[in-house]
Protein backbone atom coordinates (compact mmCIF):
# COMPACT_ATOMS: atom_id res chain seq x y z
CA UNK A 1 0.00 0.00 0.00
CA UNK A 2 1.48 3.33 -1.03
CA UNK A 3 2.21 6.04 1.49
CA UNK A 4 -0.47 8.18 -0.07
CA UNK A 5 -3.17 5.55 0.29
CA UNK A 6 -2.38 4.33 3.83
CA UNK A 7 -3.65 7.42 5.74
CA UNK A 8 -6.87 7.41 3.75
CA UNK A 9 -7.28 3.71 4.40
CA UNK A 10 -6.98 4.39 8.12
CA UNK A 11 -9.76 6.98 7.98
CA UNK A 12 -11.93 4.69 5.88
CA UNK A 13 -11.36 1.76 8.24
CA UNK A 14 -12.44 3.87 11.22
CA UNK A 15 -15.43 5.23 9.33
CA UNK A 16 -16.64 1.75 8.42
CA UNK A 17 -15.40 -0.16 11.47
CA UNK A 18 -17.17 1.89 14.11
CA UNK A 19 -20.71 1.56 12.73
CA UNK A 20 -20.18 -2.13 12.02
CA UNK A 21 -19.00 -2.64 15.60
CA UNK A 22 -21.98 -0.75 16.96
CA UNK A 23 -24.58 -2.43 14.79
CA UNK A 24 -23.14 -5.89 15.46
CA UNK A 25 -24.14 -5.39 19.10
CA UNK A 26 -27.72 -4.88 18.00
CA UNK A 27 -29.78 -2.13 16.47
CA UNK A 28 -30.93 0.68 18.74
CA UNK A 29 -33.68 -0.24 21.15
CA UNK A 30 -36.63 2.09 21.00
CA UNK A 31 -38.86 2.14 24.08
CA UNK A 32 -42.00 0.06 23.76
CA UNK A 33 -45.13 -0.02 25.88
CA UNK A 34 -43.92 -3.15 27.58
CA UNK A 35 -41.02 -1.07 28.96
CA UNK A 36 -43.58 0.75 31.10
CA UNK A 37 -44.11 -2.40 33.14
CA UNK A 38 -41.49 -3.03 35.77
CA UNK A 39 -42.17 -6.24 37.61
CA UNK A 40 -41.65 -6.04 41.36
CA UNK A 41 -38.71 -8.06 42.61
CA UNK A 42 -38.44 -6.70 46.15
CA UNK A 43 -40.44 -4.66 48.64
CA UNK A 44 -41.49 -1.15 47.67
CA UNK A 45 -44.45 0.75 46.27
CA UNK A 46 -46.17 -2.14 44.51
CA UNK A 47 -49.35 -2.32 42.44
CA UNK A 48 -51.33 -5.49 41.82
CA UNK A 49 -52.32 -5.13 38.17
CA UNK A 50 -55.24 -7.05 36.67
CA UNK A 51 -54.37 -6.10 33.10
CA UNK A 52 -53.42 -3.27 30.76
CA UNK A 53 -55.96 -2.08 28.20
CA UNK A 54 -55.96 0.20 25.18
CA UNK A 55 -59.69 0.97 25.42
CA UNK A 56 -61.52 2.33 28.45
CA UNK A 57 -64.49 0.04 27.80
CA UNK A 58 -62.24 -3.03 28.12
CA UNK A 59 -60.73 -1.66 31.33
CA UNK A 60 -64.16 -0.98 32.79
CA UNK A 61 -65.33 -4.50 31.90
CA UNK A 62 -62.34 -6.01 33.67
CA UNK A 63 -62.86 -3.73 36.67
CA UNK A 64 -66.44 -5.00 37.04
CA UNK A 65 -65.17 -8.59 37.04
CA UNK A 66 -62.42 -7.84 39.56
CA UNK A 67 -64.77 -5.99 41.91
CA UNK A 68 -67.33 -8.77 41.52
CA UNK A 69 -64.80 -11.32 42.71
CA UNK A 70 -64.15 -9.42 45.90
CA UNK A 71 -61.15 -7.21 45.23
CA UNK A 72 -62.56 -4.05 46.73
CA UNK A 73 -60.41 -0.95 46.20
CA UNK A 74 -59.57 -1.90 42.61
CA UNK A 75 -59.64 1.02 40.21
CA UNK A 76 -58.69 2.15 36.75
CA UNK A 77 -55.49 4.15 36.41
CA UNK A 78 -53.28 5.36 33.61
CA UNK A 79 -50.12 3.31 33.13
CA UNK A 80 -48.19 6.35 31.93
CA UNK A 81 -47.76 4.94 28.44
CA UNK A 82 -51.11 5.74 26.93
CA UNK A 83 -52.93 2.71 28.29
CA UNK A 84 -55.18 2.00 31.23
CA UNK A 85 -54.68 -0.58 33.92
CA UNK A 86 -56.97 -2.14 36.50
CA UNK A 87 -55.04 -1.96 39.69
CA UNK A 88 -54.95 -2.30 43.46
CA UNK A 89 -52.54 0.32 44.81
CA UNK A 90 -50.67 0.55 48.05
CA UNK A 91 -49.04 -2.88 48.48
CA UNK A 92 -45.91 -2.37 50.56
CA UNK A 93 -44.26 -5.75 50.51
CA UNK A 94 -43.73 -8.49 47.98
CA UNK A 95 -45.10 -11.07 50.46
CA UNK A 96 -48.44 -9.27 50.72
CA UNK A 97 -48.50 -8.95 46.94
CA UNK A 98 -47.91 -12.65 46.46
CA UNK A 99 -50.72 -13.47 48.90
CA UNK A 100 -53.04 -11.20 46.92
CA UNK A 101 -51.92 -12.80 43.63
CA UNK A 102 -52.59 -16.29 45.00
CA UNK A 103 -56.02 -15.22 46.18
CA UNK A 104 -56.73 -13.79 42.70
CA UNK A 105 -55.60 -16.95 40.95
CA UNK A 106 -57.94 -18.96 43.19
CA UNK A 107 -60.88 -17.03 41.71
CA UNK A 108 -59.57 -17.20 38.14
CA UNK A 109 -57.85 -13.81 37.83
CA UNK A 110 -54.32 -13.17 36.58
CA UNK A 111 -52.35 -10.57 38.49
CA UNK A 112 -48.90 -9.09 37.95
CA UNK A 113 -47.02 -7.31 40.70
CA UNK A 114 -45.52 -4.13 39.31
CA UNK A 115 -43.73 -1.18 40.83
CA UNK A 116 -46.03 1.81 41.00
CA UNK A 117 -45.21 4.64 38.61
CA UNK A 118 -43.06 7.28 40.34
Amino acid sequence: MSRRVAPWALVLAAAIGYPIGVVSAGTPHFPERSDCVELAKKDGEIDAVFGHFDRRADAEARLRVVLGRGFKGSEIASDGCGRLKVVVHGIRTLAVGRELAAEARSVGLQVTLEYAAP
Partner: protein
Amino acid sequence: MNAHAIAGLVALNLLLLAVGVSILFALRGWASWGQLLRLSGVAYLLGVAATGVVWTFELVVGIPFGFPAIIGTGAILALLAVPVGYRLGHRLPRLPRLRVKPELPRLSLVSAVFAALTVVYLEGAFRAARLAGLYEFDAWAFWVPKAKAIYYFGGFDQQFFRELINQAYPPLVPVLEAAAFYFMGAPDVVTLHLQFWFLLVGFVGAVVGLLSGRVSPVFVWPPLLLMLVAPHVGGHFYHPTADFLLDEFFAVAALLIALWLIDRKDWQLVAAGLLLAAAMSTKREGYAFAASAIVAALVVTTRERRSAWPKLIAIGLAAAATTVPWRVLLAVRHLGGGGPEAGGTGLFSNLDRAWPSLRLALSTVFDYHLWLVVTPLAVVAIVAAFAAGARTLPLYTTLVYVFAVIAFTYSTWAFPSLGISKKPALNPIVRLSGEVVLLTPALVPLLLARAWRRAPQPVGDT
Protein backbone atom coordinates in the same frame (compact mmCIF):
# COMPACT_ATOMS: atom_id res chain seq x y z
CA MET B 1 -38.28 8.47 13.06
CA ASN B 2 -37.59 6.57 9.88
CA ALA B 3 -35.38 6.36 6.82
CA HIS B 4 -37.76 8.61 4.91
CA ALA B 5 -37.30 11.44 7.40
CA ILE B 6 -33.54 11.01 7.42
CA ALA B 7 -33.46 11.00 3.61
CA GLY B 8 -35.48 14.20 3.68
CA LEU B 9 -32.93 15.86 5.92
CA VAL B 10 -30.11 14.69 3.65
CA ALA B 11 -31.94 16.29 0.70
CA LEU B 12 -32.43 19.57 2.57
CA ASN B 13 -28.79 19.74 3.52
CA LEU B 14 -27.68 18.93 -0.01
CA LEU B 15 -29.83 21.85 -1.14
CA LEU B 16 -28.15 24.11 1.42
CA LEU B 17 -24.74 22.85 0.30
CA ALA B 18 -25.58 23.50 -3.34
CA VAL B 19 -26.62 27.06 -2.53
CA GLY B 20 -23.45 27.53 -0.49
CA VAL B 21 -21.26 26.18 -3.29
CA SER B 22 -22.77 28.68 -5.71
CA ILE B 23 -22.16 31.49 -3.21
CA LEU B 24 -18.59 30.31 -2.77
CA PHE B 25 -18.23 30.42 -6.55
CA ALA B 26 -19.44 34.01 -6.53
CA LEU B 27 -17.11 34.95 -3.70
CA ARG B 28 -13.88 33.27 -4.75
CA GLY B 29 -14.28 30.32 -7.11
CA TRP B 30 -11.94 27.39 -6.74
CA ALA B 31 -8.75 26.41 -8.49
CA SER B 32 -9.37 22.67 -8.32
CA TRP B 33 -12.12 20.27 -7.36
CA GLY B 34 -10.02 19.20 -4.39
CA GLN B 35 -10.07 22.80 -3.21
CA LEU B 36 -13.85 22.87 -3.48
CA LEU B 37 -14.01 19.67 -1.44
CA ARG B 38 -11.76 21.24 1.19
CA LEU B 39 -13.98 24.31 1.39
CA SER B 40 -17.27 22.43 1.27
CA GLY B 41 -17.83 22.93 5.01
CA VAL B 42 -17.55 26.70 4.58
CA ALA B 43 -19.80 26.48 1.54
CA TYR B 44 -22.40 24.57 3.52
CA LEU B 45 -22.45 27.11 6.35
CA LEU B 46 -22.67 29.94 3.81
CA GLY B 47 -25.63 28.13 2.27
CA VAL B 48 -27.35 27.78 5.64
CA ALA B 49 -26.64 31.43 6.44
CA ALA B 50 -27.82 32.84 3.13
CA THR B 51 -30.98 30.76 2.82
CA GLY B 52 -31.80 31.25 6.49
CA VAL B 53 -31.54 35.02 6.23
CA VAL B 54 -33.57 35.17 3.00
CA TRP B 55 -36.24 32.74 4.29
CA THR B 56 -36.61 34.94 7.34
CA PHE B 57 -37.02 38.03 5.17
CA GLU B 58 -39.63 36.25 3.04
CA LEU B 59 -41.63 35.30 6.10
CA VAL B 60 -41.44 38.83 7.46
CA VAL B 61 -42.88 40.26 4.25
CA GLY B 62 -45.59 37.60 4.23
CA ILE B 63 -44.49 35.13 1.56
CA PRO B 64 -46.05 31.79 2.55
CA PHE B 65 -43.48 29.25 3.67
CA GLY B 66 -43.58 25.91 1.94
CA PHE B 67 -41.73 23.80 -0.61
CA PRO B 68 -42.03 26.43 -3.37
CA ALA B 69 -40.49 29.09 -1.13
CA ILE B 70 -37.82 26.78 0.28
CA ILE B 71 -36.61 25.39 -3.01
CA GLY B 72 -37.33 28.53 -5.02
CA THR B 73 -35.22 30.63 -2.66
CA GLY B 74 -32.32 28.23 -2.97
CA ALA B 75 -32.61 28.20 -6.75
CA ILE B 76 -32.79 31.99 -6.99
CA LEU B 77 -29.78 32.43 -4.71
CA ALA B 78 -27.80 29.97 -6.81
CA LEU B 79 -28.92 31.55 -10.08
CA LEU B 80 -27.90 34.98 -8.82
CA ALA B 81 -24.57 33.83 -7.42
CA VAL B 82 -23.25 31.96 -10.44
CA PRO B 83 -23.37 34.90 -12.89
CA VAL B 84 -21.76 37.09 -10.24
CA GLY B 85 -18.92 34.60 -10.02
CA TYR B 86 -18.48 34.59 -13.80
CA ARG B 87 -18.61 38.36 -13.86
CA LEU B 88 -15.82 38.45 -11.29
CA GLY B 89 -13.72 36.20 -13.50
CA HIS B 90 -14.18 32.93 -11.63
CA ARG B 91 -14.21 29.83 -13.80
CA LEU B 92 -14.77 26.17 -13.09
CA PRO B 93 -11.65 24.02 -13.23
CA ARG B 94 -11.54 21.22 -15.76
CA LEU B 95 -13.29 18.05 -14.79
CA PRO B 96 -10.82 15.22 -14.12
CA ARG B 97 -10.48 12.95 -17.13
CA LEU B 98 -11.91 9.54 -16.54
CA ARG B 99 -9.05 7.73 -18.23
CA VAL B 100 -6.52 9.23 -15.86
CA LYS B 101 -6.31 7.42 -12.56
CA PRO B 102 -7.40 10.01 -9.95
CA GLU B 103 -4.74 10.83 -7.42
CA LEU B 104 -5.68 10.99 -3.76
CA PRO B 105 -4.86 14.26 -2.02
CA ARG B 106 -1.97 14.00 0.40
CA LEU B 107 -2.97 13.24 3.98
CA SER B 108 -0.37 13.12 6.72
CA LEU B 109 -0.43 10.34 9.28
CA VAL B 110 -1.25 12.85 12.02
CA SER B 111 -4.18 14.17 10.02
CA ALA B 112 -5.32 10.63 9.30
CA VAL B 113 -5.31 9.56 12.95
CA PHE B 114 -7.20 12.64 14.12
CA ALA B 115 -9.52 12.60 11.12
CA ALA B 116 -10.35 8.97 11.91
CA LEU B 117 -11.08 9.86 15.54
CA THR B 118 -13.23 12.79 14.44
CA VAL B 119 -15.14 10.64 11.99
CA VAL B 120 -15.82 8.06 14.69
CA TYR B 121 -16.93 10.83 17.05
CA LEU B 122 -19.30 12.24 14.46
CA GLU B 123 -20.71 8.79 13.75
CA GLY B 124 -21.36 8.36 17.46
CA ALA B 125 -22.86 11.84 17.54
CA PHE B 126 -25.17 10.89 14.69
CA ARG B 127 -26.45 8.00 16.75
CA ALA B 128 -26.96 10.24 19.78
CA ALA B 129 -28.79 12.85 17.72
CA ARG B 130 -30.94 10.28 15.96
CA LEU B 131 -32.16 8.85 19.25
CA ALA B 132 -32.63 12.15 21.09
CA GLY B 133 -35.99 13.17 22.48
CA LEU B 134 -37.34 16.69 22.75
CA TYR B 135 -36.45 17.22 26.41
CA GLU B 136 -34.56 20.53 26.41
CA PHE B 137 -36.83 23.15 27.98
CA ASP B 138 -36.15 25.98 25.56
CA ALA B 139 -36.57 23.59 22.64
CA TRP B 140 -40.05 22.40 23.51
CA ALA B 141 -41.15 25.64 25.14
CA PHE B 142 -40.65 27.95 22.17
CA TRP B 143 -38.02 27.07 19.53
CA VAL B 144 -39.79 24.01 18.17
CA PRO B 145 -43.33 25.37 18.71
CA LYS B 146 -42.33 28.37 16.60
CA ALA B 147 -41.09 26.01 13.91
CA LYS B 148 -44.32 24.01 14.07
CA ALA B 149 -46.34 27.22 13.77
CA ILE B 150 -44.40 28.20 10.65
CA TYR B 151 -44.89 24.68 9.28
CA TYR B 152 -48.63 24.56 9.97
CA PHE B 153 -49.57 28.20 9.31
CA GLY B 154 -46.99 29.02 6.61
CA GLY B 155 -45.75 32.11 8.43
CA PHE B 156 -45.29 34.01 11.67
CA ASP B 157 -48.84 33.59 12.96
CA GLN B 158 -49.58 36.77 14.84
CA GLN B 159 -51.53 35.31 17.72
CA PHE B 160 -49.38 32.22 18.23
CA PHE B 161 -46.14 34.18 18.28
CA ARG B 162 -47.65 36.66 20.74
CA GLU B 163 -48.65 33.90 23.15
CA LEU B 164 -45.24 32.20 23.20
CA ILE B 165 -42.43 33.19 25.50
CA ASN B 166 -39.40 34.89 23.95
CA GLN B 167 -41.33 36.14 20.93
CA ALA B 168 -38.58 38.60 20.08
CA TYR B 169 -35.89 35.96 19.63
CA PRO B 170 -34.65 36.02 16.03
CA PRO B 171 -36.32 33.37 13.89
CA LEU B 172 -33.60 31.78 11.76
CA VAL B 173 -33.57 28.53 13.72
CA PRO B 174 -37.36 28.00 13.73
CA VAL B 175 -37.39 28.77 10.01
CA LEU B 176 -34.64 26.23 9.38
CA GLU B 177 -36.49 23.69 11.54
CA ALA B 178 -39.71 24.32 9.63
CA ALA B 179 -37.83 23.66 6.38
CA ALA B 180 -36.59 20.43 7.94
CA PHE B 181 -40.18 19.46 8.79
CA TYR B 182 -41.17 19.95 5.16
CA PHE B 183 -38.33 17.79 3.92
CA MET B 184 -39.02 15.10 6.55
CA GLY B 185 -42.66 15.06 5.53
CA ALA B 186 -43.91 15.72 9.08
CA PRO B 187 -43.02 17.72 12.19
CA ASP B 188 -40.84 14.88 13.45
CA VAL B 189 -39.31 16.41 16.56
CA VAL B 190 -37.05 13.43 17.17
CA THR B 191 -35.36 13.22 13.78
CA LEU B 192 -35.16 17.02 13.85
CA HIS B 193 -32.16 16.66 16.17
CA LEU B 194 -30.21 15.27 13.22
CA GLN B 195 -30.39 18.65 11.49
CA PHE B 196 -28.13 19.97 14.22
CA TRP B 197 -25.74 17.09 13.60
CA PHE B 198 -25.45 18.23 9.98
CA LEU B 199 -24.66 21.74 11.22
CA LEU B 200 -21.92 20.42 13.52
CA VAL B 201 -20.42 18.41 10.66
CA GLY B 202 -20.51 21.56 8.52
CA PHE B 203 -18.75 23.50 11.26
CA VAL B 204 -16.03 20.86 11.65
CA GLY B 205 -15.59 20.75 7.88
CA ALA B 206 -15.39 24.53 7.67
CA VAL B 207 -12.70 24.82 10.36
CA VAL B 208 -10.63 21.99 8.94
CA GLY B 209 -11.08 23.24 5.39
CA LEU B 210 -10.05 26.80 6.15
CA LEU B 211 -7.01 25.79 8.19
CA SER B 212 -5.69 22.65 6.52
CA GLY B 213 -2.66 23.25 4.33
CA ARG B 214 -2.21 26.61 6.02
CA VAL B 215 -1.42 25.30 9.48
CA SER B 216 0.21 22.04 10.54
CA PRO B 217 -2.36 19.31 11.23
CA VAL B 218 -0.79 18.93 14.68
CA PHE B 219 -2.23 22.34 15.50
CA VAL B 220 -5.55 21.93 13.69
CA TRP B 221 -6.91 18.59 14.84
CA PRO B 222 -6.22 18.27 18.59
CA PRO B 223 -8.00 21.52 19.58
CA LEU B 224 -10.91 20.53 17.37
CA LEU B 225 -11.19 17.10 18.88
CA LEU B 226 -10.80 18.54 22.38
CA MET B 227 -13.73 20.86 21.74
CA LEU B 228 -15.85 18.04 20.34
CA VAL B 229 -15.33 15.76 23.32
CA ALA B 230 -16.06 18.50 25.86
CA PRO B 231 -18.97 17.21 27.96
CA HIS B 232 -21.30 20.10 27.24
CA VAL B 233 -20.68 19.94 23.49
CA GLY B 234 -21.29 16.20 23.22
CA GLY B 235 -24.41 16.38 25.33
CA HIS B 236 -26.02 19.46 23.83
CA PHE B 237 -24.97 20.16 20.23
CA TYR B 238 -28.03 18.35 18.85
CA HIS B 239 -30.67 20.21 20.84
CA PRO B 240 -33.04 22.01 18.48
CA THR B 241 -32.20 25.41 19.93
CA ALA B 242 -30.19 28.31 18.58
CA ASP B 243 -27.16 28.27 20.85
CA PHE B 244 -24.78 26.00 19.00
CA LEU B 245 -25.73 27.29 15.55
CA LEU B 246 -25.01 30.83 16.75
CA ASP B 247 -21.61 29.72 18.01
CA GLU B 248 -20.87 27.83 14.80
CA PHE B 249 -21.71 30.82 12.61
CA PHE B 250 -19.72 33.14 14.81
CA ALA B 251 -16.64 30.95 15.19
CA VAL B 252 -16.26 30.49 11.43
CA ALA B 253 -16.93 34.21 10.85
CA ALA B 254 -14.27 35.13 13.41
CA LEU B 255 -11.86 32.69 11.74
CA LEU B 256 -12.54 34.24 8.33
CA ILE B 257 -11.85 37.70 9.77
CA ALA B 258 -8.61 36.37 11.27
CA LEU B 259 -7.63 34.97 7.88
CA TRP B 260 -8.51 38.30 6.29
CA LEU B 261 -6.11 39.96 8.72
CA ILE B 262 -3.41 37.69 7.25
CA ASP B 263 -4.40 37.52 3.58
CA ARG B 264 -6.58 40.61 2.98
CA LYS B 265 -8.73 38.68 0.50
CA ASP B 266 -12.08 40.42 0.24
CA TRP B 267 -14.04 37.20 -0.14
CA GLN B 268 -13.06 36.25 3.41
CA LEU B 269 -14.60 39.43 4.77
CA VAL B 270 -17.77 39.12 2.69
CA ALA B 271 -18.20 35.50 3.79
CA ALA B 272 -17.64 36.56 7.39
CA GLY B 273 -20.28 39.24 6.97
CA LEU B 274 -22.78 36.74 5.66
CA LEU B 275 -22.15 34.44 8.63
CA LEU B 276 -22.41 37.35 11.07
CA ALA B 277 -25.73 38.34 9.50
CA ALA B 278 -26.94 34.80 10.08
CA ALA B 279 -25.61 34.89 13.66
CA MET B 280 -27.63 38.04 14.33
CA SER B 281 -30.70 36.36 12.83
CA THR B 282 -30.12 33.35 15.06
CA LYS B 283 -29.95 34.91 18.53
CA ARG B 284 -29.84 38.38 19.99
CA GLU B 285 -26.37 37.67 21.34
CA GLY B 286 -25.31 37.54 17.71
CA TYR B 287 -25.23 41.35 17.70
CA ALA B 288 -22.77 41.43 20.60
CA PHE B 289 -20.66 38.63 19.16
CA ALA B 290 -20.51 40.26 15.73
CA ALA B 291 -19.62 43.61 17.25
CA SER B 292 -16.85 41.98 19.29
CA ALA B 293 -15.20 40.48 16.20
CA ILE B 294 -15.56 43.66 14.14
CA VAL B 295 -14.27 45.93 16.92
CA ALA B 296 -11.37 43.56 17.61
CA ALA B 297 -10.47 43.66 13.92
CA LEU B 298 -10.76 47.47 13.92
CA VAL B 299 -8.37 47.71 16.86
CA VAL B 300 -5.70 45.51 15.32
CA THR B 301 -5.89 47.34 11.98
CA THR B 302 -5.50 50.82 13.45
CA ARG B 303 -2.34 51.41 11.43
CA GLU B 304 -4.06 50.56 8.17
CA ARG B 305 -7.33 52.19 9.13
CA ARG B 306 -7.75 54.00 5.84
CA SER B 307 -7.91 50.80 3.85
CA ALA B 308 -9.21 48.34 6.45
CA TRP B 309 -11.78 50.21 8.49
CA PRO B 310 -14.22 51.11 5.71
CA LYS B 311 -14.43 47.45 4.71
CA LEU B 312 -14.85 46.19 8.26
CA ILE B 313 -17.45 48.80 9.13
CA ALA B 314 -19.33 48.23 5.88
CA ILE B 315 -19.45 44.48 6.50
CA GLY B 316 -20.67 44.97 10.06
CA LEU B 317 -23.36 47.45 9.04
CA ALA B 318 -24.50 45.33 6.10
CA ALA B 319 -24.78 42.27 8.34
CA ALA B 320 -26.79 44.20 10.92
CA ALA B 321 -29.01 45.67 8.19
CA THR B 322 -30.24 42.20 7.24
CA THR B 323 -31.99 41.98 10.61
CA VAL B 324 -33.88 45.27 10.19
CA PRO B 325 -36.98 43.67 8.60
CA TRP B 326 -37.40 41.37 11.60
CA ARG B 327 -36.99 44.28 14.02
CA VAL B 328 -39.57 46.24 12.03
CA LEU B 329 -42.00 43.33 12.27
CA LEU B 330 -41.50 43.22 16.05
CA ALA B 331 -42.21 46.94 16.26
CA VAL B 332 -45.28 46.73 14.00
CA ARG B 333 -46.72 43.91 16.09
CA HIS B 334 -45.83 45.68 19.33
CA LEU B 335 -43.77 42.76 20.52
CA GLY B 336 -41.06 43.49 23.04
CA GLY B 337 -37.61 43.93 21.60
CA GLY B 338 -36.22 41.71 24.30
CA GLY B 339 -33.82 44.30 25.73
CA PRO B 340 -32.09 43.87 29.07
CA GLU B 341 -34.10 44.28 32.27
CA ALA B 342 -31.56 46.66 33.76
CA GLY B 343 -29.52 47.97 30.84
CA GLY B 344 -28.02 51.44 30.67
CA THR B 345 -28.28 53.26 33.97
CA GLY B 346 -30.00 50.20 35.42
CA LEU B 347 -26.55 48.66 35.69
CA PHE B 348 -25.62 51.23 38.34
CA SER B 349 -28.59 50.37 40.49
CA ASN B 350 -27.42 46.74 40.37
CA LEU B 351 -23.74 47.37 41.02
CA ASP B 352 -23.70 44.62 43.62
CA ARG B 353 -24.19 42.12 40.76
CA ALA B 354 -21.14 43.28 38.78
CA TRP B 355 -18.41 41.27 40.48
CA PRO B 356 -20.49 38.08 40.97
CA SER B 357 -21.49 38.30 37.28
CA LEU B 358 -17.87 38.59 36.15
CA ARG B 359 -16.82 35.78 38.47
CA LEU B 360 -19.62 33.59 37.11
CA ALA B 361 -18.65 34.35 33.51
CA LEU B 362 -15.00 33.50 34.09
CA SER B 363 -15.68 30.39 36.14
CA THR B 364 -18.04 29.15 33.41
CA VAL B 365 -15.68 29.54 30.48
CA PHE B 366 -12.93 27.84 32.49
CA ASP B 367 -15.21 25.12 33.92
CA TYR B 368 -13.43 21.80 33.35
CA HIS B 369 -16.59 19.77 33.84
CA LEU B 370 -18.28 21.66 31.02
CA TRP B 371 -15.52 22.43 28.55
CA LEU B 372 -12.45 20.45 29.68
CA VAL B 373 -9.33 22.59 29.08
CA VAL B 374 -10.50 24.29 25.90
CA THR B 375 -10.28 27.84 27.29
CA PRO B 376 -6.94 27.32 29.09
CA LEU B 377 -5.60 26.02 25.77
CA ALA B 378 -6.68 29.27 24.14
CA VAL B 379 -4.93 31.29 26.85
CA VAL B 380 -1.73 29.28 26.41
CA ALA B 381 -1.88 29.75 22.63
CA ILE B 382 -2.37 33.51 22.97
CA VAL B 383 0.53 33.84 25.41
CA ALA B 384 2.75 31.65 23.24
CA ALA B 385 1.96 33.69 20.13
CA PHE B 386 2.70 36.96 21.95
CA ALA B 387 5.93 35.46 23.29
CA ALA B 388 6.93 34.51 19.76
CA GLY B 389 6.64 38.13 18.72
CA ALA B 390 3.28 38.03 16.96
CA ARG B 391 0.95 40.92 17.60
CA THR B 392 -2.01 41.11 15.24
CA LEU B 393 -3.49 37.61 15.63
CA PRO B 394 -3.00 37.21 19.39
CA LEU B 395 -4.31 40.72 20.03
CA TYR B 396 -7.35 40.07 17.83
CA THR B 397 -8.02 36.78 19.60
CA THR B 398 -7.49 38.30 23.04
CA LEU B 399 -9.94 41.09 22.29
CA VAL B 400 -12.59 38.70 20.99
CA TYR B 401 -12.27 36.57 24.14
CA VAL B 402 -12.26 39.58 26.47
CA PHE B 403 -15.30 41.06 24.74
CA ALA B 404 -17.00 37.68 25.07
CA VAL B 405 -16.40 37.58 28.81
CA ILE B 406 -17.65 41.17 29.10
CA ALA B 407 -20.78 40.18 27.17
CA PHE B 408 -21.34 37.16 29.42
CA THR B 409 -20.88 39.36 32.48
CA TYR B 410 -23.34 41.89 31.12
CA SER B 411 -25.87 39.15 30.38
CA THR B 412 -26.07 38.31 34.08
CA TRP B 413 -25.55 41.81 35.45
CA ALA B 414 -28.24 43.44 33.26
CA PHE B 415 -30.85 40.78 34.02
CA PRO B 416 -31.43 40.90 37.80
CA SER B 417 -34.02 38.13 37.53
CA LEU B 418 -31.24 35.70 36.60
CA GLY B 419 -29.57 33.83 39.39
CA ILE B 420 -25.80 33.91 39.91
CA SER B 421 -25.67 30.27 38.95
CA LYS B 422 -24.61 27.89 36.22
CA LYS B 423 -27.87 25.98 36.50
CA PRO B 424 -29.57 26.22 33.08
CA ALA B 425 -32.95 26.86 34.70
CA LEU B 426 -31.59 29.93 36.48
CA ASN B 427 -29.10 31.44 34.05
CA PRO B 428 -28.18 30.77 30.40
CA ILE B 429 -24.49 31.50 31.03
CA VAL B 430 -23.35 27.97 30.17
CA ARG B 431 -25.06 28.08 26.78
CA LEU B 432 -23.62 31.54 26.14
CA SER B 433 -20.09 30.46 26.97
CA GLY B 434 -20.15 28.00 24.09
CA GLU B 435 -19.08 30.96 21.95
CA VAL B 436 -15.60 30.94 23.46
CA VAL B 437 -15.36 27.19 23.27
CA LEU B 438 -16.26 26.84 19.60
CA LEU B 439 -14.03 29.79 18.80
CA THR B 440 -11.01 28.02 20.22
CA PRO B 441 -10.49 25.32 17.55
CA ALA B 442 -10.98 28.02 14.93
CA LEU B 443 -8.42 30.55 16.19
CA VAL B 444 -5.98 28.58 18.34
CA PRO B 445 -4.35 26.70 15.41
CA LEU B 446 -3.36 30.01 13.82
CA LEU B 447 -1.85 31.17 17.11
CA LEU B 448 0.00 27.92 17.73
CA ALA B 449 1.40 28.00 14.21
CA ARG B 450 2.59 31.55 14.82
CA ALA B 451 4.06 30.59 18.16
CA TRP B 452 6.00 27.86 16.39
CA ARG B 453 7.70 30.75 14.62
CA ARG B 454 6.06 29.89 11.33
CA ALA B 455 3.53 32.31 10.03
CA PRO B 456 0.32 30.61 8.91
CA GLN B 457 0.70 29.96 5.21
CA PRO B 458 -1.73 31.17 2.59
CA VAL B 459 -3.32 28.26 0.77
CA GLY B 460 -3.72 28.35 -2.98
CA ASP B 461 -5.42 31.54 -3.97
CA THR B 462 -7.19 32.09 -0.65
